[in-house]
């Protein structure tokens, strides 16, 4: 069981959260020409590192806020949690 420290609610069990994937992916800017390659990169390509991974979680059964979590994908150690608009 993962224990995730929600920056809004404190330490909660994994059951309260839904996973939202890689948090480092940036959508190409709005109202600008986007090449197929850029779009491909945004929609499909993922580094999926073994080790530190910055990811989105949704505190769906809690405060319903999206948060960022920096977690080790091999050991599941959680290094840091942030509000969705904070940068690491």
């Amino acid at each position, binding site marked *: *069981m*993962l224990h995730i420290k929600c920056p809004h609610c404190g330490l909660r069990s*994994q*059951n309260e959260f839904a*996973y939202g*994937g*890689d948090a480092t992916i940036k959508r190409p800017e709005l109202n600008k020409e986007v090449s*197929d*390659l850029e779009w*491909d*990169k945004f*929609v*499909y*390509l*993922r*580094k*999926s*590192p*073994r080790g530190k*991974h910055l*990811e989105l979680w949704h505190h769906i059964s809690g405060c319903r806020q999206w948060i960022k979590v920096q*977690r080790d*994908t*091999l*050991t*599941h150690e959680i290094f840091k949690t942030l509000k969705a608009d904070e940068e690491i």
Partner: protein
Amino acid sequence: MQKYSLFSLIKNAFSNHQNWEVAWKDPTPKKEYDVIIIGGGGHGLATAYYLAKEHKITNVAIIEKGWIGGGNVGRNTTIVRSNYMHDENGLFSEFGMNLWRNMSQDLNFNVMFSPRGIINLAHSDAQMNVYSRRGNSMLLNGIDAVLLNREQVKEIIPMADFSDNVRFPIFGGLMQPSAGTARHDAVAWGYARQADAMGVDIIQNCEVVDFDVSGGKIKGVRTSKGDIKANKIGLCVAGSTNFLAEKLNMTLPIETHLLQACVSEPIKPILDKVVTFGAGHFYVSQSDKGEMVMGGDLDGYNSYSQRGNLPTLQHVLTEGIAMFPFLSKLKMLRTWGGIMDMSMDGSPIIDKTHIEGLYLNCGWCYGGFKATPASGWTFAYTIAQDRVHELNAGYSLNRFSTGHLIDEKGLGTKTWIS
């Protein structure tokens, strides 16, 4: 190589089974090979076997970080099937079914292929419509499919919950009678033994640490047992694909996730089919030892840990009990996990890459085991001929940018969502 037969069994009994030949050797790596396969799992072993058998390329090394049978080929739930709707998946898997049917004879190793049939349960009218459509697609591709109504399902699996007051009543199901199970370890051992006999070097406990690429061409690998040269290298490492791709500066449409499975204590024969729950993600069959073999959802977040977490297991088994209430009385014997290469449309990739001589086999998601022979066969073809076969032409790496996705489950890019 010594042939396994009743005669050889009797003969070796006279010497107390002390004189059996080793199944495969433990060679030190040569300086150079024609082809190196990275990953000694089912797919890697099958690739090496078909390279030797179909293409007469025997100067081949399989490099395996762990040991043969220690990865996903020994961690799956042994289901073999071809009940797909899309042509690419259906034709590829059905080609594999024909290899499965002859595998024990072909490998001279009893892989205990048991075509007992698989039933996907439906729990609504809409789901029956979807299954009817899938069944028709299967029939058009020459795959056997039978749409069952509630009474027919009840006749086959009366122990399922057919009571009136259930959340997900069984409306019927789609059955592929020729699907079934096979002994997963035997598949790995059988391919390893035959590949070894034809001259393939199986190098275990040897980790690839880097690649030698120059001028856009692959030249070899650096391993924990020294540098090994080859002009053709096949990457066949399932859950470690992203990890090795990073060393090649490649970003792939793959995420690595953890999938758990479990077996109960052995009980007397009760279930002679593979059955899947249609209102969630749960599947079960009974092994020859009598254990109920069960699995379901991914843990749901990127993971390389090969160990699962309890909330997912509880969720999956809740679905199992909803389908087969008797499961609640059983004690759990073992649980384990394996890391899956989840592709962005749920279908695999068997293709060349932008690096000349580097070939990619990945993205098997939940369904790698059943694909073992077809994957090995087509990957061997792609490596030997330096072009894709029509069976794996749809499994291209660039289909994501061109929009030719094979989205069998309609899950979109987040194939890990449960």
